[in-house]
């Protein structure tokens, strides 16, 4: 089945009733299809730095200032942009990267902030919002996809309740396939007691019985059940994607023999096979004590992983269709505490966006000299999310219908940051 046809089946014959009707009435069919085709084959890899990475030891160094700490700033391949000396390899990729240095998200609590930076907005008592991965999965995923739409490598440290993927009102269809330490998602592997042929035949028998039953009946929920079973063989076949041993040793070494490195390599394998959204978490950045030792270790690892990922994606021609994000729940205080640590800080901190849809070599926003406040252009979570959607060719104003209530992808008033978009 071609991409367009799969789109039209999903959008217009209605397994997912949310939002599609609105799209049809306000824009012409052709326009919708064109926009859909444009989005096809795009991906997001979110490198989630759980616990809160320090902006001062990554994207926004303050060498020589009282808050600067021991590390220096280095020049990059984009004249005028400096980053921490802990990221010498990343310094070669700035032509594909935008740095945002003025996130002001106001929430310094791990739980709440982490939810905020996954949802792009604050929780509301009665609405379960979908997170970034679920929205990307819904907007970029294909009904007939043979691979998962949303894969999340989370770490036990970051807390299941706060950071585990949430599909919210989009429903279980867009739940993340989640992995912690284990190499494989649950239930992907066929049990030994059934042969491959019987496994497939059994699934076909199930479909046949269900199709008979559905004659004269109609239900989007039943259609989604059929789809869920039809995806089983494809999802099972994607098992091999989760095994990095298929990669040459040199490639594995490029990413580094760490869990984070190997999971990021798997993330690349997944997007190459068509998975729209992969989150890889690295924990635990929460350096209340010994901030500099912690960051020496973690930023160096991140530097290697980012370098490997951006190089690899570029060599495969995937970078222009893949957005790589580094993000935390918040940054760290410029003030250095008595344990040589930095504490939670959401007033002014940084993140990076590389690849798809991004204006490389750009820096947006500014912290003041000591990094205590935003000096220019504060950015809220909603604006960051609107920017991410825009970079992927998704209209951030698009609305899902939650009962009688229209829920836009980002809160009203959140506009994308044009200055970092290609």
């Amino acid at each position, binding site marked *: 089945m071609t991409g367009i046809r799969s789109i039209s089946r999903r959008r217009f014959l209605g397994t997912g009733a949310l939002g599609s009707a609105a799209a049809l009435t306000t824009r012409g069919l052709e326009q919708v299809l064109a926009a859909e085709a444009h989005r096809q084959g795009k991906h997001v890899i979110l490198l989630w730095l759980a616990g809160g990475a320090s902006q001062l030891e990554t994207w926004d160094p303050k060498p020589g200032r009282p808050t600067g700490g021991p590390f220096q700033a280095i020049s990059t391949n984009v004249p005028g942009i400096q980053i921490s000396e802990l990221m010498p390899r990343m310094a070669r990729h700035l032509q594909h990267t935008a740095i945002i240095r003025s996130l002001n998200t106001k929430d310094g609590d791990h739980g709440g902030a982490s939810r905020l930076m996954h949802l792009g907005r604050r929780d509301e008592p*009665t609405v379960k919002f979908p997170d970034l991965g679920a929205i990307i999965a819904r907007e970029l995923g294909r009904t007939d996809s043979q691979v998962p739409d949303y894969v999340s490598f989370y770490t036990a440290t970051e807390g299941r309740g706060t950071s585990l993927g949430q599909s919210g009102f989009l429903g279980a269809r867009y739940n993340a396939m989640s992995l912690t330490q284990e190499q494989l998602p*649950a239930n992907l592997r066929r049990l030994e007691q059934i042969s491959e042929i019987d496994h497939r035949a059994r699934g076909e028998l*199930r479909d046949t*019985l269900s199709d008979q039953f559905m*004659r004269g009946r109609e239900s989007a929920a039943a259609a989604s059940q059929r789809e869920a079973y039809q995806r089983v063989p494809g999802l099972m076949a994607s098992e091999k994607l989760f095994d990095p041993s298929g990669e040459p040793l040199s490639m594995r070494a490029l990413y580094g023999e760490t869990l984070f490195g190997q999971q990021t390599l798997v993330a690349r394998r997944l997007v190459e096979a068509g998975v729209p959204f992969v989150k890889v978490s690295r924990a635990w950045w929460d350096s209340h004590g010994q901030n500099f030792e912690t960051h020496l270790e973690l930023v160096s690892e991140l530097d290697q992983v980012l370098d490997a990922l951006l190089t690899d994606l570029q060599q495969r021609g995937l970078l222009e269709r893949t957005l790589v994000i580094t993000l935390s729940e918040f940054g760290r205080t410029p003030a250095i505490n008595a344990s040589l640590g930095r504490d939670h800080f959401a007033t002014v901190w940084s993140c990076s966006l590389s690849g798809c849809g991004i204006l490389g070599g750009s820096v947006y926003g500014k912290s003041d000299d000591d990094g205590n406040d935003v000096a220019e252009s504060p950015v809220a979570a909603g604006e960051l999310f609107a920017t991410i959607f825009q970079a992927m060719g998704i209209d951030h104003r698009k609305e899902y219908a939650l009962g009688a*209530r*229209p829920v836009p992808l980002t809160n009203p008033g959140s506009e994308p940051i044009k200055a970092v978009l290609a």
Partner: protein
Amino acid sequence: MVSRVIIGCLLCTCALFQVGPSRAQELSTTVLPDPELTIGAAIDQLIGERLARAGLEPAPLAGELNLLRRTTLDLAGRIPTAREAREYLESNAPDKRRELIEQLLGSPEFVAHQVNLLDALLMQSRRSSLRDYLERAVTENRSWDRMFREMIVGEPGDGEQSGAIQFLRSRISDIDRLTNDVSVIFFGVNISCAQCHDHPLVHDWTQDHFFGMKAFFYRSFENGGFVGEREYGELEYKTVAGESRKAGLMFLSGSRLPESEVAEPSEDQRKQEKAQLEELKKQKQPPPTASYSRKARLVDVGLESENATYFARAIVNRIWQRLIGRGLVHPVDQLHRGNPASHPELLDWLARDLMHHGYDLRRLIGGIVSSDTYARSGIWESASRPPAELHAVAILRPLLPQQYAASLALAAFDPEQLNSPDAPKKIQARVQFSRGFADWFELPGDEFQVGSEESLLLSNSDRAARELFADGNETLVARLRACSDIASAVDLAGWNVLNRPLADAERRILTEYLQQRQDRLAEGYRQMVWAMMTSAECRFNY
């Protein structure tokens, strides 16, 4: 407090456009059908009138076994057993449907299922401690208004706060959420948007409504895990225009409740109160009760004649949604003028009937399932299927997690085991056992979609294979193997899993499937059972 409201406001996602008011929210002015009608007759009359206006002939009644399955799932929370299905089909009793309904309504299984449903409604995903209370209340068939009072005010003599008050206790740390939960659950009104500004879509709900409702709970507080209530304290909030306002008690209908002014306590009194509460915390004792309780006033005013229509309509609408598949007002938390009911007279008739009969939920449920509207077939033969809200044809409903789990557990069970006099006990034990895997499935909301987590789990998990598709003692698969031939095994599987005789086409497909697996027939049976149990027919209430 004020700053929190402002922050909430900036982030609220309500779209800012307005919809004009349409019909009046008060009980409809048109004359309702005779209150002496049975519930079923009133439903069929009013649903029928709208169908007639639309020039539609409804679908015929569903077949006997279809109805048996539907009703057993709705009242007992599980599929019927093969034996129950056969006996029902063979019975010549002229009034067997009514007898079935009565028997199910009186069964312990009804209580258990009703507890599950109420628990899901009232406690949502909270780690529930309301089940003990619900079990008592449903067993006695306590009236819904009494349960409401007990959940907000507490049961008399429950000094430990271990009963109904857990509803409130589990929410006391977040009064905003408590306010909205109470409004949604008991009155069908979601006012969360109005927290920040007048509701953008609904003229009925303004900031005054949210804070007027919140004021009822504003004096309630948590102390050492217990709920207490003060006799002073005024709620203030900032309007969108930045004006500071005092929020007096105001019910959703707009009725304001006057109160005499209460002086704020002095510094000394506050200190004293604090010390006393600290002491009670240490002793793990609940705080003293207020002699004047605002939350008790909410219950009083909410159950006053005019306002009670909200309360009655909200629960009627939820039960209708559960049994029929779509609320008379849809979605169920949007009971307001801008979102009229599909059948306003029916909603009002049922609400009035509920009020006149002591808020007896069991009676209401029995009445709805006795109607022809409930009993329609889900199959629509001709080309264009009428809109769901006309109820010309039954709506396919996804099973709730416990319903699906219990049904799978029974479907996988050896039917011979249920031919003994202690069958009810064994059924109960199977249902109990199925609780262990009910959390495999998602609680369906509007727009429910089955995810690949479910299909992968039932396809490949070792546990599912062991507990549902195994070939050991007391399993269906073992019984199928013991059948004399493939044909009788196929028939037996049909009765056990799908609760009906198979159609010829199905029999042919399944027999062929098994014949191709003569060399591994046990495997073939397991696969057939799997295919039936994961089929749409087994996953939904049709």
